[in-house]
């Protein structure tokens, strides 16, 4: 490849960038103590839930996340629905908040009649040491919260995907698998979506070297005519988003996933109810 730009010119560009960069970098480095996290949460709480009481959620749901995130770009988390199997009330909606991420309100899931319960696993990006919290709204219109503290770590790592080119090349491809829960005998359904899920925020001052934001912002899963869940999210989900959930066996029909991204691409894929789901994997891109 030919030299496109002379050595000095490149370095001038970089040097000028120093001037712009030094400030924000320092501010960023200081934003990792726990007190500050609570301040972030307080303003979010006001914006999203105003004065409504938020109760201790330990009997309603659990949040399982590693205390030390091995790879900050891929932090596996599981939200377990403790009301599962109860007739009296159930979880209708979940909010996932990662306090120290650039957009803390990371995802919202609303469950429908085809959901067996609200147990859910996914993988998220964690920008730095942070509280992660889940707020649940129950069918009796109460709010509950659980939280975990997560330390991002790893010498060479950053919350960036390893191969955005490849993810882009296969964008919109989806797979459905049956997976085992980490505890118990439960079987979950895993929806896997090929998407680079680029935050676009990685280093503002070097933006022209980095892809602009491009991420999945909505996922809807239905079975037959019934909704399993509707969801909206930011780039806090990892590259190639993955969501595991529980579908009711007694609802008939195909399972359909509709995925939307911030560039208004829409991807839709259906799987027959009884097919060997693991073997199925092809993409259907319906609009772009």
């Amino acid at each position, binding site marked *: 490849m030919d030299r496109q*730009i002379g050595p000095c010119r490149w370095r001038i560009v*970089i040097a000028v960038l120093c001037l712009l960069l030094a400030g924000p970098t320092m501010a960023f480095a200081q934003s990792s103590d726990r007190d500050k996290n609570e301040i972030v949460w307080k303003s979010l709480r006001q914006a999203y839930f105003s004065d409504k009481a938020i109760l201790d959620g330990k009997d309603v749901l659990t949040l399982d996340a590693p205390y030390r995130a091995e790879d900050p770009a891929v932090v596996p988390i599981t939200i377990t629905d403790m009301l599962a199997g109860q007739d009296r009330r159930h979880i209708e909606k979940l909010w996932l908040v990662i306090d120290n991420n650039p957009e803390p309100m990371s995802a919202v899931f609303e469950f429908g009649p085809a959901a067996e319960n609200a147990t859910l696993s996914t993988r998220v990006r964690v920008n730095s040491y942070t509280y992660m919290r889940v707020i649940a709204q129950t069918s009796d219109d109460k709010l509950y919260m659980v939280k975990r503290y997560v330390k991002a770590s790893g010498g060479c790592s950053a919350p960036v995907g390893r191969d955005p080119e490849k993810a882009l090349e296969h964008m919109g491809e989806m797979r459905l698998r049956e997976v*085992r829960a980490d505890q118990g005998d439960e079987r979950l359904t895993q929806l896997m979506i090929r998407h680079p899920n680029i935050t676009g925020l990685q280093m503002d001052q070097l933006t022209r070297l980095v892809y602009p934001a491009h991420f999945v912002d909505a996922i809807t899963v239905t079975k037959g005519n019934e909704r399993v869940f509707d969801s909206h999210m930011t780039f806090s989900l990892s590259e190639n988003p993955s969501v595991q959930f529980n579908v009711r066996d007694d609802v008939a029909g195909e399972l359909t996933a509709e995925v939307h991204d911030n560039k208004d691409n829409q991807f839709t894929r259906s799987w027959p109810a009884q097919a060997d789901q693991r073997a199925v994997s092809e993409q259907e891109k319906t609009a772009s």
Partner: protein
Amino acid sequence: MQLSKCMLGLVWLAVWASPASAGGAPADLDLQAGVLRPLELEQVASGVFYHPGTQAEETTTNQGDIANVGFVVGDRCVAVVDTGGSPAVGRALHAAIRERTALPICYVINTHMHPDHVFGNAAFVQDDPVFVAADGFRQALAARARTYLDRLAEDLDEPTDSSWIVMPDRVVEDSFTIDLGDRVLQIRAWPSAHTDNDLTIFDQSTGTLWLGDLAFVDRVPAIDGSITGWLSALGELRKREDVIHAIPGHGPASSRWPGVLDNEQRYFIAIRDGVTRAIDDGRSLRWAEDHVAGAEREHWLLFDDYHARNVTAAYTELEWQ
């Protein structure tokens, strides 16, 4: 030269103007101590020198001197291969070069974008060399630069700023040959392996292969690219019969070729096979992190710092195959 001066001026201005150095204290520990201690070198072959980095994470004590760095001297000029994890290490490498030769430094080659290999680049800007890296280096480093600078500011307990980021002038897509004067270096770029911008450098005249982080010896490898890509790269490298000396990115140089790659290859195969089984059994990522290739632990330094992350990298790659 004129351009070079303008450049230096800008860097100086930028450093001066940044809040990092606003307190007036010298950022550089060498200067505080009043001495600049050149890196200790080992000669691998005629005109080929390397400094073995400490097998540890970055700390205030090692200043980021945790990766192998070195240089090759030709009749006309010098090519530097990686520059260490901070400008202080880069300056110490520069001083070590100057103890051996007064020839100009015409190339600085970065084997990939990780901070322990490139954050000494700033110490060589004054020489106005051609900075060489693989295609993909710029984008990969730009995407991670802020994270790297923030993390190193904590680990080294020293202000960092973007003067630490020096991007390449020349990017290599496949291969590139440079002549240092009766000393030809063949530079080769690899498909995604350790990272998506790995380079190896071969010095024909001495049969020395600089492997960058395609080779980790003793220290556990870190997958930041592709486990299948890395395994194919190792397979291809092993076929080479012209290698007499191999210099890994971490760990001692060796003339055991291709045996120097054995442990690493075994480790990756254990991960690949274990993760593939976990995926086929419907096991989760969390489960795989706890259960795959744990028996490798006794063979590696820093295993607990990187192994689970390697499994994550392998899992998220292999689940799509």
